[in-house]
C-alpha cells in the first residue's frame, strides 16, 4: 500500500482501484461474524479455498471472510456476489455443490436457500428475504461487502473520503456544526447529543485533548459493537480521526471488551494499515494535523463501560466511577478534556460528513435521528443484527424482521437496554422505537440489545437475573447501589423460593426510588428499571409466585414439582440414568417412583423421557 502524501494522490489511487475492479467478478463471502464463527465459518471458508483450487477457479472467484451478514440464526451464512444469492446454514459438506452448481453452472442450490420460518416461503436473493426488507443499513452497510482486513476494500467503497473532505474542505467548527445539525445522539446508552458534547470539548482550553471509543459493550445480549469493530474497523478509525480534528486532539484510544479478541486483532491491523498509508500519524494527508490511536483492552468489569470508570481503567486503576461534573469533555483522561463516544456513534460520523447533516437528519423521528442497530435475540425465529430507521415499531422488528416466534409459543415481552433497561409488554408493540418512547414506557434504548421473551420466560426470574448481575458488577463505592442491589436480590430470592409476601413488592419499589435518586453512576441509578418494569407490567406473575407459589413459565425451580405418571411411564429407565441424585427408582418395565425429598428439580428426567411420562407443574 502506498503512503498517501496528498489528497490528490488518495483520489487517484481510489479511481484506479475502482477501475481495476470488475463489478461482475464472482465473489464468495463467507460470514465470519460473531454468530457464524461458533458455527464453523473457518471450516466452511477452508472448504471453499480447497474446492475453488481444485476446480481451477482461484483467480476467477474471489473468496472473502467478511463480518456479520445479519441473519445469524442461519449460520453459517454465505453470500454469492454479484447475484447476491444468500445461502444459509452452510457446512463444509455443502461447499462442493455450491461451487459446482452456482459458481460453475449458475444454478441455485435449492436446499440452501432461505425459507420463512412460518410461511415456508422461499427466497434465494438477499433483496427478497423478509429479514432484510425494512432495514436501512448505514453502519452495517459494508459488512457483507468488504474483507475487514483489507484497506483496499474500504477505500474502494469510498473509505477515508469523509476524512479527506473534513481535512481539506471543513474547519473544525464546520465539522462540529455538521454533527450537531445531523441530530446524532450517542449510541452507547445515554443518547446525549454528540455535537453538543464535541462543542464543549472543543471550547475547553487545553493543548492536550483525547478521543476515546467505547467498545466495552457490557450489556449481556448485545453484540452490535463487536460486529462493527470486527467487520468494518476502518469506519471506527475514520470517525475517530475526524473527531480528533474537530476538537483538536492528537491521541485516541479504543477500549475493547476483554471477551472480544478478534475485534482487537482487526482493529490493530486496521491501525497499522492506516499508519502505513498516512491516515494516522504525523501530518495526515499533508494537512498539518497529527493523530494516532492506541488500543486499551478491558479486563472484565461491566462498570468500566461507564465513561469515568473506563477512563480510570485506561489510566491503569480499578474502574470506579467518579461523580460528574466535571464531565470528561472538560476533564477526562489524565484530567484533560476528552470525548468519549460509542463504537456505533463513531461509525456514523464518516457517513454524516460524506452525505451531509440534512441527509442524516431526514432519517428517523423528531428527536432521534438516523438508524439504530439492534441485536435481536432470544425467542424470535430470526435472530441476528438489524439496522432500522429510528421510529420503526417493535412489532415490525420482532414480527417482520425477526419472523415472529415459534408457533407453539406466545410473545411475552421485549427487553431492551440491558441491565439498565426494562421489559416492554405486548401492549406497546406498536410503539415507534426511539430514545424518548422507550423511556416513556420505563425502559431505555441502551446500546441496542433487544431480547425477545416468550411464555417460557419468567419475568420474576429475569428481574432476579439482572439484579444479580448488577449486584456482582456494582463497584461497591456508593451505598445505595451496593446495599440496594443486595436487598433487592434477597427479596427476589425469597419470592422465587416461595417465601414471598405482597409487602415485598412495595418494599422493592421503595428501594428502587432510593437507588435511582442517590447512586453516583448510571449503574446504580438505572438498576431499578428491570424490577420496576416487571412489577408494573407483570404484577400477576409476581402474585402467582407470592400467593399461589407457582411459576407458570416453569422456570423458578423451588416452585416446580416433578412427578411421574404411572399410566404413561414405560419403565425404560431413561430418566433414572439422567437423575444426578438418584431420586428416581423402580423396576425395569414398571412405572418409576420419584422421591420429592431427594429431587433437586434439575429437569433432566423431564427432558430424557420420550413418553412424556414426567410431568412438571
Amino acid at each position: 500500500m502506498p503512503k498517501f502524501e496528498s489528497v490528490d494522490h488518495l483520489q487517484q489511487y481510489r479511481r484506479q482501484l475502482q477501475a481495476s475492479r470488475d463489478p461482475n467478478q464472482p465473489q464468495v463471502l463467507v460470514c465470519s461474524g460473531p454468530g457464524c464463527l461458533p458455527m464453523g465459518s473457518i471450516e466452511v471458508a477452508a472448504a471453499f479455498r480447497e474446492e475453488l483450487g481444485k476446480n481451477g477457479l482461484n483467480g476467477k472467484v474471489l473468496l472473502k471472510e467478511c463480518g456479520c451478514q445479519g441473519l445469524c440464526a442461519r449460520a453459517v451464512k454465505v453470500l454469492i456476489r454479484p447475484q447476491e444469492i444468500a445461502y444459509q446454514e452452510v457446512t463444509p459438506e455443502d461447499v462442493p455443490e455450491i461451487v459446482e452448481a452456482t459458481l460453475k453452472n449458475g444454478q441455485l442450490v435449492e436446499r440452501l436457500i432461505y425459507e420463512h420460518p412460518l410461511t415456508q416461503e422461499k427466497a434465494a436473493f438477499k433483496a427478497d428475504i423478509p429479514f432484510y426488507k425494512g432495514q436501512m443499513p448505514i453502519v452495517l452497510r459494508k459488512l457483507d461487502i468488504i474483507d475487514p482486513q483489507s484497506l483496499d476494500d474500504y477505500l474502494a467503497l469510498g473509505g477515508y473520503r469523509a476524512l479527506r473532505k473534513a481535512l481539506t474542505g471543513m474547519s473544525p467548527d464546520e465539522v462540529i456544526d455538521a454533527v450537531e445539525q445531523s441530530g446524532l445522539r450517542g449510541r452507547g446508552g445515554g443518547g446525549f447529543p454528540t455535537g453538543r458534547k464535541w462543542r464543549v470539548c472543543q471550547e475547553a482550553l487545553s493543548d492536550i485533548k483525547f478521543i476515546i471509543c467505547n467498545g466495552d459493550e457490557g450489556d449481556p445480549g448485545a453484540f452490535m459493537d463487536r460486529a462493527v469493530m470486527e467487520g468494518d474497523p476502518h469506519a471506527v478509525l475514520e470517525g475517530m480521526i475526524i473527531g480528533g480534528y474537530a476538537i483538536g486532539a492528537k491521541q485516541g484510544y479504543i477500549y475493547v471488551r476483554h471477551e472480544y479478541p478478534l475485534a482487537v486483532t482487526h482493529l490493530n491491523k486496521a491501525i497499522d494499515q492506516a499508519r502505513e498509508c498516512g491516515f494516522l500519524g504525523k501530518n495526515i494527508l499533508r494537512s498539518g494535523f497529527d493523530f494516532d490511536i492506541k488500543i486499551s483492552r478491558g479486563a472484565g468489569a461491566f462498570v468500566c463501560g461507564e465513561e469515568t470508570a473506563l477512563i480510570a481503567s485506561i489510566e491503569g486503576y480499578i474502574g470506579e466511577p467518579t461523580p460528574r461534573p466535571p464531565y470528561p469533555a472538560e476533564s477526562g483522561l489524565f484530567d484533560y478534556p476528552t470525548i468519549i463516544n460509542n463504537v456505533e456513534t463513531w461509525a456514523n460520523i464518516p457517513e454524516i460528513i460524506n452525505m451531509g447533516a440534512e441527509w442524516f437528519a431526514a432519517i428517523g423521528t423528531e428527536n432521534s435521528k438516523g438508524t439504530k442497530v439492534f441485536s435481536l435475540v432470544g425467542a424470535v425465529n430470526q435472530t441476528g443484527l438489524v439496522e432500522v430507521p429510528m421510529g420503526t415499531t417493535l412489532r415490525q422488528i420482532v414480527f417482520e424482521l425477526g419472523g415472529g416466534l415459534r408457533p407453539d409459543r406466545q410473545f411475552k415481552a421485549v427487553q431492551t437496554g440491558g441491565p439498565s433497561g426494562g421489559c416492554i409488554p405486548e401492549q406497546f408493540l406498536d410503539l415507534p422505537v426511539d430514545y424518548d418512547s422507550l423511556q416513556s414506557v420505563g425502559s431505555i434504548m441502551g446500546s441496542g440489545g433487544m431480547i425477545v421473551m416468550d411464555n417460557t420466560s419468567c419475568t420474576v426470574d429475569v428481574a432476579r437475573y439482572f439484579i444479580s448481575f448488577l449486584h456482582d458488577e456494582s463497584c461497591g463505592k456508593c451505598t445505595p447501589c451496593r446495599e440496594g442491589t443486595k436487598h433487592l436480590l434477597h427479596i427476589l430470592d425469597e419470592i422465587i423460593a416461595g417465601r414471598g409476601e405482597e409487602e415485598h413488592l412495595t418494599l422493592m419499589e421503595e428501594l428502587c426510588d432510593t437507588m435511582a435518586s442517590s447512586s453516583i453512576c448510571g449503574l446504580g441509578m438505572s438498576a431499578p428499571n428491570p424490577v420496576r418494569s416487571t412489577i408494573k407490567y407483570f404484577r400477576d406473575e409476581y402474585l402467582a409466585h407470592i400467593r399461589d407459589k407457582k411459576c407458570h413459565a416453569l422456570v423458578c425451580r423451588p416452585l416446580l414439582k416433578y412427578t411421574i405418571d404411572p399410566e404413561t411411564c414405560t419403565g425404560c429407565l431413561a430418566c433414572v440414568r439422567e437423575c444426578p441424585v438418584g431420586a428416581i427408582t423402580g423396576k425395569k418395565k414398571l412405572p418409576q417412583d420419584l422421591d420429592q425429598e431427594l429431587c433437586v428439580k434439575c429437569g433432566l428426567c423431564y427432558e430424557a423421557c420420550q413418553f412424556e411420562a414426567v410431568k412438571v407443574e
Partner: protein
Amino acid sequence: MKKSQKTIESILAGYPRHPQNLIGLLQDVQAEYNYISPEHLALICDHVGAPLTQAWSVATFYKSFSLEPRGEHEIKVCLGTTCHLKGGNRLVETCERDLGVARGQTTEDLRFTLDTVNCLGSCALAPVVMVDEDYLGGANIRSLKKRLSKLE
C-alpha cells in the same frame, strides 16, 4: 498446548515504564501463564512504577485476572441474558457434574477450569459455551458432553 512460553522479561520489555501500562502487562502475563504469580506481580510493579497495593487491587477488581494457577483447559459457559433464558445454567451444571468441579474453580490436577461469563457476543446462537479457543453455538447438554469428552 501453548507454543514456547515467552519469558516475563520479554513481556515486560514490550511496555514503556509507566503506571498506565499496569493493566496491559497483567493481561499479557495472564494470557501467557494463565495466572499472575506473586513474583510476576512484583516484577510488573517494579517495571511500571506502581505500588504493590495498586497492582493487587487492580488484579482482584477485574474478573479476567487470576492470582491462582488455572487449568490446562478453560471452559467458559455463557450466562449472559440470552444464554440464561435459553438454559445456560443447565449447561454449567452439566460441566460441574462432568468435570467434577464447581463454577469458578479449577480441578485439583489443574486440568480444567470452569467459569461462567456474561455474554460472549454470539447471543444469536445462544446458549454458547467456549472450550479453550473454540465456541460451541446452540449448545445443548448432549453436544456439550460430546465436546467435553474430546478434551484430553
